[in-house]
Structure formats: structure tokens, C-alpha cells
């Protein structure tokens, strides 16, 4: 009888110890599969599907207490919401990472969330809030982190938007000369240089820099920014008295923007 009870107890203990492990693995596998689906949907421009899939990933990661995964997915949900032009929702997702009282999310996630919050707030011209978020990311980034260049580039852009074109120019020029950085961020820094020069009425130099940025954006295939660069070139050419060139740039910008708008609309359909 004693042996029977010992055997029964062993069986119960084995069952208690093993069952949650298999559920855990199952949930993690499901989360990975859903995350893959979401990223694929995002790449193909299916934003609503990506949003739905990331929400599913979040639930699964929360069920297995995967804090790092949860932080990444919250940031991804914010990014998708931003791309859907729902910036309030995007900020709410990012705040879930930033306002978490328990230090459960990794530092890198805090830096990324603060940086993306600053980008979104800059885009909607809430400059003082953007400044606070950017300061937080700068503080967390300290000496060296993967987002250092992006943070610097955004700081220069923010300075320009606040009217401090000189400081923005200095900072952006320093950033654009750095090597071993992402091409996108290098182009962003150079664009800030061109815009700061435009603000400072250094039109010839601004035109040169806009042309350089245009070449970079063309090589990256970033249609929306190509339109922005061409518009900048049209403005500067007007200031230089080159009306014919300005009209040509403006026409090209309109064509690129229309083409981009149509392709985006087709993807969302």
C-alpha cells in the first residue's frame, strides 16, 4: 500500500512539474509564429493585420512573463499605430514601457521607446514634450548605444524646429560626417544640414546638400523623402532666382508624392 501511495505521489509531482513546461513552450512557439506573421504583414504594408498579429503576440508573451519580448512588442505596436497615423495610440503603447514602475523591461527598450516617443511628438509639433522624451533617451543612452546617431540626428532636427538653426547646423554637420552609421540616419542628418542652411539663407550650399540627400534617398528607395528633398530644392532654387529649375523640381516632387500616395493607398486596400 505504501508503495502504491509513493508511486501515486511521484506521478502527481511529475505531472505538476511537467505540464506547465509544455504549455510554456507551446505559448512561446505560438508567440514566435505570430511575431513572424506580424513582421511579414508589416513589410508587405498590411498594417491592420500587423497590428492584430502583434496584439496576439503581446498576449502570448504576457502569459509566459517574457518581459523583453513584451517590451519589444509594445514598441512594435506603437510603431504600427504611428504608421497608421494613430499617434495617440502609439504614444500610449510607448508609455506602457516608459511608465512601468517595476524595472522589468531592459534598458535598450526604454531608450528605444523614449526615442520613438520623441520622434512622434516632433512630427506632431509637440516640441517641449518631444524635448523631454529625447532628453530621457539621451540620458539613458549615455556614452554609446545603438540609437546614439538617431538620437543626435533628432536633436539637431528639434533644434532647427525650435528656431536655433546655427546649433542645428553645427550638430547635423558633425553627425553627417560620422562613419559606420545607418545610411537612413546619415541622410536625415544631411537633410537637417540643408534645411538649417536654408533657414540661414545660405541657399547655394543648401541646394548642394539637398541634392546630396536626394541621391542618398534615391539609393535607399525612400519615395516620401525624395519628394521632401525635391520640394526643398524647389524652395531654395526659388530663393536663388532659378524659377525654371524650381518649377521642374516642384513638378518632380508632385509626381513622386502622387506616385507614393497611390502605391500606399493600393497597399492599404
Amino acid at each position: 500500500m505504501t508503495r502504491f501511495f509513493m508511486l501515486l505521489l511521484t506521478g502527481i509531482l511529475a505531472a505538476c512539474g511537467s505540464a506547465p513546461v509544455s504549455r510554456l513552450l507551446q505559448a512561446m512557439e505560438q508567440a514566435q509564429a505570430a511575431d513572424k506573421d506580424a513582421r511579414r504583414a508589416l513589410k508587405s504594408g498590411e498594417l491592420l493585420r500587423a497590428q492584430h498579429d502583434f496584439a496576439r503576440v503581446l498576449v502570448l508573451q504576457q502569459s509566459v512573463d517574457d518581459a523583453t519580448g513584451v517590451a519589444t512588442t509594445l514598441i512594435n505596436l506603437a510603431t504600427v499605430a504611428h504608421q497608421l497615423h494613430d499617434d495617440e495610440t502609439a504614444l500610449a503603447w510607448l508609455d506602457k514601457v516608459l511608465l512601468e514602475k517595476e524595472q522589468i523591461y531592459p534598458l535598450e527598450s526604454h531608450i528605444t521607446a523614449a526615442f520613438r516617443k520623441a520622434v512622434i511628438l516632433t512630427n506632431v509639433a509637440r516640441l517641449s514634450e518631444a524635448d523631454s522624451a529625447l532628453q530621457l533617451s539621451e540620458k539613458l543612452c549615455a556614452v554609446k548605444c545603438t540609437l546614439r546617431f538617431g538620437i543626435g540626428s533628432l536633436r539637431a532636427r528639434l533644434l532647427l524646429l525650435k528656431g536655433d538653426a546655427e546649433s542645428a547646423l553645427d550638430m547635423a554637420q558633425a553627425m553627417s560626417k560620422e562613419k559606420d552609421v545607418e545610411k537612413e540616419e546619415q541622410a536625415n542628418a544631411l537633410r537637417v544640414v540643408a534645411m538649417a542652411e536654408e533657414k540661414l539663407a545660405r541657399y547655394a550650399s543648401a541646394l548642394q546638400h539637398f541634392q546630396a540627400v536626394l541621391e542618398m534617398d534615391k539609393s535607399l528607395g525612400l519615395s516620401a523623402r525624395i519628394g521632401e528633398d525635391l520640394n526643398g530644392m524647389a524652395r531654395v532654387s526659388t530663393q536663388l532666382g532659378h524659377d525654371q529649375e524650381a518649377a521642374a523640381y516642384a513638378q518632380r516632387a508632385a509626381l513622386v508624392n502622387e506616385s507614393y500616395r497611390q502605391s500606399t493607398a493600393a497597399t492599404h486596400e
Partner: protein
Amino acid sequence: MALLTDKDERFKNLFVKAAIFILLAAIGVGLVFLLTGEKKGAFTEKLPIYFVADSGQDLNEGMPVKFSGFKIGKLSALTLDEQGLVQGQVNIEAKYLKLIRQDAVMSLKKEGVIGDGVLEISQGEKDKPALVAGAKVRFERASGLEQAVVDMKDRVLPILDDLHQALHDPNGDVRQTLKNLRELSAEMRGTREHIDRVLGSVDANINNEAGPLLRSLRQSAVNAEALSARLDHELPALLNKADASMESLRLTSEVIKDAVQRSAPQLPGMLGEVRETLGKTREIIGDTQEMLDSLSTHWPLKNVVPAPEKGPVRMDSHD
């Protein structure tokens, strides 16, 4: 009993109550027997038919007789006659006997590859008269496991030889594809360099924005070049793995062949070999699955599955 009955109200009419209880139980048991018997066909009229077999091997009294997949009777008796032949008697439900014609054949088959034996009776030609009780039908043994294994060996070995030839023939498709990919790699490198030059010389005043398209072409060339280089590195290993699997299959087929030759008359021994072979085949299937997974990941004609991304999706300071 009288004393208890007198003093306790519950014991009044005890005998009647007990009798009713026993009667109900007996009726219940009887009903169960009746229903079970009905279900088993105990009350169904059955008629005997006979067959003669050269041997009683694999024939057992009680084994089912099937017609079109339905059980219609069973082998009720086996006897040895004066000539040493086996006389079999099967009892078939009367209602089904009219469906079977006089030229029907009784076949001894296996349910599944290594399942139990079963007697299967065919319908026969429709224009023949129906079978009557006490009639005799022809008996045969259906293709056994040995025959199935020999058939499989005869079919598999030529395929293995063809595959082996295809993998090793320097002018074969596989080796030629590898060679072509190497050539493609060199061409793609040239194409990329050419696109680089074109990108460098694009006139800023060109009205249509050809840059993104060229950049996309360049990226495709770079991807193809990288993929080709990766394949050049990995395909020989995959081919070796394929060779190893082919060798395993060949060894397995030899095991089957050997088993057939050694144990043809002794089915039980044969079954042991077959089980072992099935185990090995499962292992080979596992190896083959692994190889296929590997191919599906790297084969250039499929979409190359990228390593899963982990971090946050991309967003820069200007998004």
C-alpha cells in the same frame, strides 16, 4: 423470520419484495443476453458453405468472413480430409448468401500490412446463379507480405539507382545546376558592378526617378550573389547528406532483400525483420525530413527563409 416481521414494519412482505428484485434482475440479465446475442448475430439464420485449402496455415476457426468490407459470417470448422487437404466450413448469414454467385472466390488476406488474417469472399459474375447452402467455393491466398516486400524491393531499387546516377553524373541536372549557379554568381557580380556604375552616373536632371528602381535591381543582384556564394558553400554538404541518406536507403533495401530470402516460408520470423526494417525506415524518414527542411531553407529555387528578427521593427529619426 417471523420474529423480525412482527417487530419491524420494513420486513413486511419481505419475501414478495425479494422475489420481485430477483425477478427483475433475472429479466435484466436475460435482456442483456438477448440484446448481445442479437447484436452478435446469434439469432440470425446462417447457412454453411465450404472450401478446400492446400494448407491450414493462417486459417483459424472463428476468423471473420467479409464481403465488400462487411462481416457476413465466420469460419466455423476446419478439418483435414483423407487426401491431406483442409476442408473449411464457413457459416454465412442467409440474407447475404443470395448476393454471392457460384463462381465467387474465398481469399485469405491480411488486414493492413501485418494485421490479422481475414477471409474475403468476392461476389462473382452477376450472370451466374446465386450460391446455395452447402455449395463449395474456390479458395486462394492473396498476395502475402513476402510478395509485397519483394514488389517494393523491385520498385525501389531502380529508383535508388536512378537517383544515385543523377547525383553523381557530372553532366546530370544536379551537378549542372550547381555549375550554372556558380556562373550565375559571376554574372550577378558583373551586373551589380554595372548597376553601381549606372547609379553613379545618373543625371540629377533626369525627370523620371530611376534611382529607386536601379537601387532595387542592385539589391537583387547583391542578394543573388550572396545567395549563390552561400549555396556554393553549403550545397556540397547537402549533397553529401543526400548521398548518405541514399546509402542508408540502399542498406535498408538490402536488409529487406536478405530478410525475404532467409525467411520466406516462416512468416513470424519475417515479421520480426519487417518490424526492424520499419524502425530503420522511420529513422531514414527522419533523416530525409531533416534534409528536406535543410533544402527548403537553402534551396535557391525556393524563397530563402531569413533568420527570425528579434528586436523592434525599424523606425528612424525622420519617420
